[in-house]
């Protein structure tokens, strides 16, 4: 930040004094006004006390054996060694990766398709947008997870549909091969926030581009591939990364709809971690799992950023390149 712009000439003496002290202490790096820090102080303190401190603690706990009932005992890297031999850990990794790979693209496709539908100028479009976004407001909630359990359950809507079209009814949630699929569908159903972001991205695309393409006789499909997708790619990247981060941490629906079953076919990483922490009271082990998850998400995000160089197009780059 430029110091010149901050130092306005009419400063109250008190304020000037404070900044002078600050400038001296931090050798000129403390340029932002103190008031700004005061403004963010509630949030900052909340972050330090309620987030950073527990994060540090969990790092320490990951090297201990801690059952909540007895004090934590330092055991070095034993938790990590045990995890490396834990069959259920690898099972939960497998389930989670399957879920991420299936649910994130599906959710983005649904969100993009609906955003395209809602990106037109017809009467009452804002009403439709509201209606379609509405389910997503409650999508991640417990109530919807319970609803889902009933829809796919033995006497649920899906089975009534199945009987009607002549398919043998079954408990979709209770069958190992289909249980994860129901959770993927539930995730896709929560398309709302990605859809809103796509919609905003679509509105940013200048209409001249489409007009020019029309003049050149481009088909709608070609326009979509040549104009919409490249122009939207930064938004797609954002949604992709957020989707992956969220999917890796998915907990509520796995906990409520299937509770990890049957035969651990939906035991997601976060649920496995929760069960270790509160089911078996292995807080140290669970903390170690949390740090492993952090590393996995970090790597996944980094890979996405690296790969994005090859497919994400930023408008501002054009001048630099050519």
């Amino acid at each position, binding site marked *: 930040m430029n110091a010149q712009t901050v130092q306005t000439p009419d400063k109250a003496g008190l*304020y000037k004094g404070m900044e002078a002290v600050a400038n001296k202490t931090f050798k000129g790096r403390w340029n932002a006004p103190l008031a700004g820090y005061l403004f963010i*102080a509630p949030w900052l303190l909340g972050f330090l006390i309620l987030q950073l401190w527990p994060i540090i603690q969990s790092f320490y706990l990951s090297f201990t054996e801690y059952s909540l009932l007895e004090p934590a005992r330092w055991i070095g890297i034993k938790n990590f060694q045990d995890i490396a031999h834990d069959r259920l850990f690898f099972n939960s990794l497998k389930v989670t990766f399957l879920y991420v790979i299936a649910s994130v693209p599906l959710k983005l496709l649904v969100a993009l398709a609906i955003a395209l539908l809602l990106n037109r100028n017809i009467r009452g479009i804002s009403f439709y947008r509201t209606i379609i976004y509405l389910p997503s407001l409650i999508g991640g909630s417990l109530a919807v997870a319970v609803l889902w359990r009933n829809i796919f359950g033995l006497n649920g809507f899906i089975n009534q549909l199945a009987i009607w079209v002549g398919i043998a009814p079954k408990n979709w949630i209770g069958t190992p091969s289909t249980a994860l699929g129901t959770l993927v569908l539930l995730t896709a159903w929560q398309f709302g926030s990605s859809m809103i972001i796509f919609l905003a991205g679509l509105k940013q695309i200048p209409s001249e581009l489409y007009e020019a393409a029309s003049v050149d006789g481009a088909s709608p499909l070609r326009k979509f591939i040549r104009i919409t997708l490249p122009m939207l790619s930064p938004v797609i990247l954002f949604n992709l990364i957020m989707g992956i981060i969220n999917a890796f941490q998915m907990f509520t629906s796995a906990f409520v709809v299937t509770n990890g079953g049957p035969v651990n076919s939906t035991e997601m990483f976060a649920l496995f971690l929760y069960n270790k922490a509160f089911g078996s009271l292995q807080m140290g082990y669970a903390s170690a799992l949390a740090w492993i998850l952090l590393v996995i998400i970090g790597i996944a995000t980094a890979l996405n950023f690296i790969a994005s160089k090859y497919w994400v197009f930023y408008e501002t780059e054009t001048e630099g390149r050519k």
Partner: protein
Amino acid sequence: MRKSWHRLASGAAAVLSLSLVLSACSGIKKEEAGSAEPADGKSITLRIMWWGSQARHDATLKALDLYSEKNPGITFEPEYQSFDGYQDKLSTQSAGKNTPDIFQMDAAWFNDWASSGRLEDLSSIPTDHIDKALLETGTYQGKLYAMPLGNNAWGMVYNKTMMDSLGVQPPKTWDEFFAMARDLKPKLAKDQYLTRDLTADGAFYMSYQLSMGKGFSMSKDGKFHYDEATWKDWMNKWAELRKDNLVTPPDVTVSDKAQDAQMDLLIQEKILLRGAHAAEFGGTDALKPGVLALTTQPRGTQAGGWLKASMYWSVSPNSQYKEEAKKFIDWFVNSEEAGEILGTSRGIPVNKTVADALQPKFTDVDKSALGLINEVSKDGAAFDPGPGNKGGWANFTKEYDNITQSIMFGKISIDEGWDQIVKLSKTLE
């Protein structure tokens, strides 16, 4: 000048809002601390926590009100919820040294808690009229750490209306049980069965092993007690029934959720019986009034059920009001006025005098529960609370479910399953 004032004011506003946030936090703390430090030494607040159904909440709150009325200066700060998540909450509170003064305790966790010094010695509370066997279950190394609150027994609940109309009695022995699963099926609808597939039901297997004279499969000594021959015999019997479509298919079996109006297979009339505790019968009956009845677990060479305490009160050793807490528990279990309000909300009262005084007021549901308890008490086993979560048992229980479910879904054979269980038992300390 005006601009700088503006800034100063906004800065001040930020500080003010911050201090409000902080004081809001400390306000909560203060309330708790205030209750812990009575100004005049007379007015104190006891924190008390339990799990249960709505009926139990109502009865308990009423009892607390009466106690406060009779003991001026003592008020309660109750925390109550359903069983789901109760243990998580209690453990977390314990880690923060913030357990309530009085809290409900379960037999399955009792040893973990008593052995780690998390419970206060309650031996000073009079227990003359309380069943000695039940008191024993709340005792650790000669000291009473958990006061039993109700009698309970493990048996079965069955659909009496349907069994009557089919002209059958609930099975008394395992031979009758398995034969009935076969014989009854032709008389039932396509998706109706005598029982769900019990392959992955650890509690039922425990009863089976017990009834075959091989003792509890899990016990508080923390050692591995699964009997290979009995276990494989059990698994083979279920595999046969499953193969012949005489029990619920696996996907239906795992969907069963006891006491859930939508998902309980017994309530949905998909099965005719299931394992049950006497003290839960009120809740089950409410979902299907007048249709269900209780009976004992099937017998093998001996009885397969057991008697246990429904739940306990324990006191936190960190409580500042241990004596007041103990006095309250004494009143709760030993006084007839408390018994009258509480009824059978925690099972049949443990105090014989209280239970006798209550008897004329028993409803049919209470009488059924009492009937099962009396039946089981003839020759049922004393309850073994099991190994708790320590020494790798929490992990064992979880993996055991996984292995037996894999057998049920046909992913592994019974012999493979047994080998995995034996391998798993080597990890127990």
